Structure formats: C-alpha cells, structure tokens
C-alpha cells in the first residue's frame, strides 16, 4: 500500500509529527509534478464553474453584485490554479492538519454531522438559497483541494474503489440541496395559498419527443461519463487471494461500511443481521405507516416534517456519513484515524469498556460472579432495561407524548412505527453510552452469544 507520496524521506514512517515536536513529514513532503498539474486543473474547472455562475447572475438575473462576488471567488481559485500549474508546491500547513487530526474522532465526527444536519434542517431556507448553497459548494471544493495536498489523505482518497464515495458525497450533497430547495419554494407558495410548482405543469405532453429525447440525452451523458471514468481509472486488482494473510484493515465493500461501523457498537448478530433486517423491513413499511396523505407527488417539507426529518436522519446521518467514516477514517484494526493521519498499524487505543452487569454488581453492589454461573441474575439489570425499552416504552409513548399519533394511526401502525424507530435509535443510544460511560454490553450472555 502506498502510504507516502514520492519524495518522502522522513526518518521513519511511524513518527507522527506532533509526537516529536518537529514535523519531518511536512518538511520533506512535496507534491510531485503530475499531482500538482492535476490539482491545478481541478482548480481551473472550479474557476470556470464560478465564471459560469457569475455570468448567470449577470445576464439572466441582472444582478451585478452577485456577479462581482463570484468573479472574485473565481479569482481566488485562479490564483490556486496558477500556483499548482506552475508547480509552486503549496501544501496545507502542518499545524492545520494536526489540528484537524486532533479534533476529529468518532465522537466529534458524529456530533459534527448531527449538528450540521440539524442546522441545515432548521435554516433550510437560507441554506438552500442558490448563492449560499453555491458558497458551501465552493468551500467544500476548496477544502478538498487543500486537503489533497497531504500525502496521507491523498493515498486514501484516490484509491480506485474509494472514488465512488467522493462521487457519493457530492451527489448526495447536491440532491439534498435540490430536494430541499424545491420543498422550500413549494412551502412558500403554499403558505401564500398557491399550488406547488408541480401543479402548474399538470397538462399532458407526448412521450415522443418530450420524454424519449430526455432519456436519450441522459443515456449519452451517462455513457460518456462512464467511458471516461473507465479509461482514466483502472479497476483495482490486488495480490492473488490467500487465506494466509488478512489485510489490515479488512473492509467490506464500501456500500456496507455503515454496517461495519455498527460493529464497533454491536455484536455481529445485531449489526450484521438484526439491524439490516430492520432497515429493510422499515423501508418496506414506510408507505403503510405514513398515514399523512399530504405531500404526494410534489416536493414539500412543511407538510411532512416528521417523515422527512426521520428519513433524512437515517439516510444522511446514519447511512451516508457512516460510510464516509468507515471508508476514509477507519484504518488498521478499525482504529479511527484523522484525515491526514498516517495509518499506523501499531496504533494502540486503550480499550477499557465495561459491561453494564459489572458496573452494577461490581461497581454498585460489590458482588463478583463466578465465571459462567448465574448468568440470568448477573444480567438481570440489563435485561430489565432492554425489556423496558422494547416493551414498556411504546405503550408509555402511546399514552403520553405520542398520544395524538396513536389516536390517528391505530394500534398496529403505531407499534410498528415505534418499534422501527426504537431500532433506529438503538445505534445512537449505544454510541452515546459508549462515549459517555465506556459501556460495552448492556446485556452480556456469551453462553448463548447473546450480547447487546
């Protein structure tokens, strides 16, 4: 595996910059010519994008102020482009990289994505204004451009099979914006008593030519992109398979890395079997438990707040961002590594997680259980908690906070919904328990492989 860019002559690869005060990696790290040209071209494309955006404001919207802003932004990128095309070799300063690496961990990463998600939902109107969204895009592109000058980051992000995830990040970002933007516009219209935009176009048109040509153009563009992608990027092929030597880390295909990340918090029977099954059952059940008849056939947020926030939370926060985490930030032994950190296979993190039964019996009652004896009594506190969570919580909710839902949904719908949400919440709950009190298992019955 290529871990450092060419020209790396650091004393020994395991030395982390901030551990030895000086920063050998930074001083010796340099960008080779072809990478610089690549980064330069990348910036040049962003310059063009911004010029296009400026032209749109100038000619279509007759808004000089916006046009000027985006020309200035284009200039900033032009300076970057020039610097890399002329091989100035700018590298993101080590103190920034170290600060990012030190700040980011599984907890901060998850909390950050959650906070950003909440902010996006709350400020959806402002966030989806085209200039704001465009600004966010520019910032993320600039950050990517800076980050890629680091050789550790580069070696991970440019692994052939990881390229789709870069694509995933930007396409999910784009379509989240698009969907929310259309919803915001429709919500405003409906608040004024006007119909949603889709309604204005409900006349019928002929499929030939209107649809078949759109399809044809889509196919041509898709073919074009796929062929370019195939020619530029070789499909990976590693050493021939051998059961003798497992690569470290061994990762599932990228679309399952969200599940692999759950293995940190749950045993395989939960993370690999029960929770995925619940995801599928939950998806299939959506149309049957969502009793809200509004918002069918057009984008809207206000009419379907609960549904959209829940689905987005599952899809964006629990699925996509965990895939990104699993791909880019989980290294050898599934340890967490900052984006610029060297994937040191010898990194050791203290594991001091404790089972609930130990906390209760040993910590509170001072009682020790003999190995393999009285497991039922030993695990009783955890079992009670789980039973309460699964069996007592739904009726409690039906009687209290969620009473209006219960009344409108009826018995079956309501319990299916609450059960599904309980399973979905099981992941963040365990995460928080792990982070705050180092909890390993709530119920620990290795005798029957039954650990929760």
């Amino acid at each position, binding site marked *: 595996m290529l871990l450092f860019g060419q020209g790396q002559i650091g004393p020994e690869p395991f030395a982390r910059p901030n551990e030895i005060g000086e920063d050998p990696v930074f001083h010796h790290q340099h960008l080779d010519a072809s990478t610089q040209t690549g980064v330069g071209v990348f910036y040049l494309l962003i310059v063009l994008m911004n010029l296009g955006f400026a032209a749109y404001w100038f000619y279509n919207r007759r808004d000089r102020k916006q046009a000027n802003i985006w020309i200035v932004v284009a200039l900033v990128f032009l300076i970057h482009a020039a610097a890399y095309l002329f091989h100035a070799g700018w590298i993101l300063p080590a103190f920034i990289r170290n600060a990012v690496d030190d700040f980011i961990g599984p907890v901060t990463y998850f909390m950050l994505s959650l906070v950003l998600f909440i902010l996006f939902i709350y400020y959806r109107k402002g966030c989806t204004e085209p200039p704001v969204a465009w600004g966010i895009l520019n910032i993320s592109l600039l950050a990517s451009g800076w980050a890629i000058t680091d050789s550790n980051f580069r070696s991970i992000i440019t692994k052939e099979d990881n390229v789709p995830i870069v694509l995933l990040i930007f396409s999910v970002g784009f379509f989240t914006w698009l969907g929310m933007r259309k919803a915001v516009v429709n919500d405003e219209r409906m608040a004024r008593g006007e119909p949603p935009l889709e309604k204005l176009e409900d006349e019928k048109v002929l499929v030939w030519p209107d649809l*078949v040509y759109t399809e044809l153009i889509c196919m041509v563009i898709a073919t074009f992109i796929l062929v370019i992608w195939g020619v530029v990027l070789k499909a990976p092929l*590693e050493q*021939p398979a051998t059961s003798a030597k497992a690569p470290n880390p061994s990762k*599932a295909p990228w*679309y399952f890395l969200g599940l692999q990340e759950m293995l940190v918090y749950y045993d395989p*029977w939960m993370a690999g079997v029960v929770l995925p099954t619940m995801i599928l059952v939950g998806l299939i059940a959506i149309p049957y438990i969502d009793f809200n008849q509004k918002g069918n056939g057009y984008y809207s947020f206000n009419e379907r707040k609960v549904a959209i926030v829940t689905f987005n939370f599952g899809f964006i926060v629990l699925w996509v961002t965990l895939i990104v985490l699993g791909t880019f930030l989980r290294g050898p032994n599934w340890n967490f590594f900052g984006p610029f950190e060297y994937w040191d296979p010898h990194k050791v993190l203290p594991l001091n997680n404790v089972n609930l039964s130990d906390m209760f019996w040993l910590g509170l009652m001072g009682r020790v259980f003999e190995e393999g004896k009285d497991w039922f009594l030993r695990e009783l506190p955890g079992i009670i908690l789980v039973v309460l969570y699964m069996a007592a919580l739904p009726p409690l909710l039906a009687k209290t906070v969620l009473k209006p839902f219960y009344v409108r949904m009826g018995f079956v719908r309501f319990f299916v919904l609450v059960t599904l949400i309980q399973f979905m919440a099981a992941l963040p709950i365990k995460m928080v328990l792990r982070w705050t009190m180092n909890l390993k298992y709530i119920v620990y019955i290795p005798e029957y492989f039954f650990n929760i």
Partner: protein
Amino acid sequence: MSVGDYIRNSQVWKSIFRHPAPRDRRNRVVVMLTNVFLHLHPVSVRKSGIALSYTWCMGGLTFFLFLVETVTGVLLMFYYRPTLEHAYNDILALRDVTTLGVLRELHRWGAHAMVITIWLHMYRVFLTGSYKPPREFNWSVGVILLVLTLLLSFTGYLLPWDQLAIWAITVGSNMARASPFLGYEGPGATLLKVGDVSLIHSGSDARFLLLGGRFVSGDTLLRFYVLHCVAIPLAVAVLIAIHFWRVRKDGGISGAL
C-alpha cells in the same frame, strides 16, 4: 429524393417501422404503440412528472446502468472462468492482454454508479412522497430491487479473487455466522438441537449455505458466480418488469393532483 427519404420509403424500413416518421401528432402516438421498447412508456405523460428536476432521471439511469452491466457482464463472461486456477489470471489478462479489457472498468464503475443512482432514486421517491397511495406496493418492489442490487454488487466483488475480494466477502459473510438461530455463533443456535445433536453447527449454518463451505473457497466462487451472473440478474429483470408495469398502472409518474 434524399437518401433518408429513400431509406424510409424502402420495403425493408417499412416492414420494421409500420408508420411514417414521428413528426406529427398522430405518428408520435403510433410510434409509442408499435415499438415494443417504447411501449414501456405511456403515450402521453404529465409534464411535471418528466421534468429532470423532478425525477432527477435516477430511476431511468438505474435501469440504464443495469443494461450496461448486463451487456458488459455478458461480454466479460467470455473471458472469465470462475475457478481457483483461472479466476485471478483471467482478470489479470483483462488488464494486461485483452484488447477490450476496459470492459472490466465499465462493469465495475457501472456497478458502483448503480448503487449510488438507486439510492438517489429512492431518495427522490421519498422526498416527493411518491410512495403514498396508490404507489405503496411499487415502493416495496423497489426496496426488494435495492436489496438485489446490493447483492449483485456484493457477489460480483468476489469474482476477481484477489485479496480485496476474498477479505471483503469474508468480512461480509462472517455476519451470517451470527444470525440468530441460523448461524452457529448466533444467539439461540445452541437451543436448536435434537437430543444431544445440535442442528446448527459450522457445517450447516447460514454462512455455510452462503459460502458452500466453512470459509471462502472455490465453492464460494462458483456459488457467487452463478448468483451473480444468472440468478440475481433474472430476479432483478422480473422485478424491474413488475416495477415499470406498476408505475403505469398506478397512474404514471406521480404529480400534484
């Protein structure tokens, strides 16, 4: 008479397309009805439903990528033999020897892209509330398609038989070992026994069924190959047919009523 007109007036052309070019309203209707591929579509649709900004064309792209995968996949089958002896070298040859080796890239990147487009398709169907009545069932068909698409990708991942492949499949299939009751390390498995003989052991559990052995082996390769090239694509094709049929029967692409 131009060449185009000459061709369009020939008996051969007319035997294939039984009507004049779709330039006027009547023939634009007829073309949709007389062509087996086009008649997957209705003759006319709601304008809002086919706007690119509404569907993002993601369902269509998913279908298109499925077709790309089918074509490139069939071609790849000419070059690839699913045995321990040949698998890796055949893939190596695709890279180093075969003229059309780029087929492998198209197939692999197409598969990745299909996973992304199917998620985005589901996302847009959700955001437009298009799973609501009368389209509940088609959403469920979609979820099954999603599962099958992921399984297609997963089974294909093993075929190059390199380190990446077998260890990714090992990680993935180790989950099956922990299935409740059905995996030999799953909760409850020890309870399933007749007398003293336990029914679920490493030679009879869910993982064994998946891998055709106790670990990823040549039998697994064969199993995944057959699933990947025959069984799952057939199931997907049938379900896509149902899916498209239902899109039309449920009143076409959704729209504000």
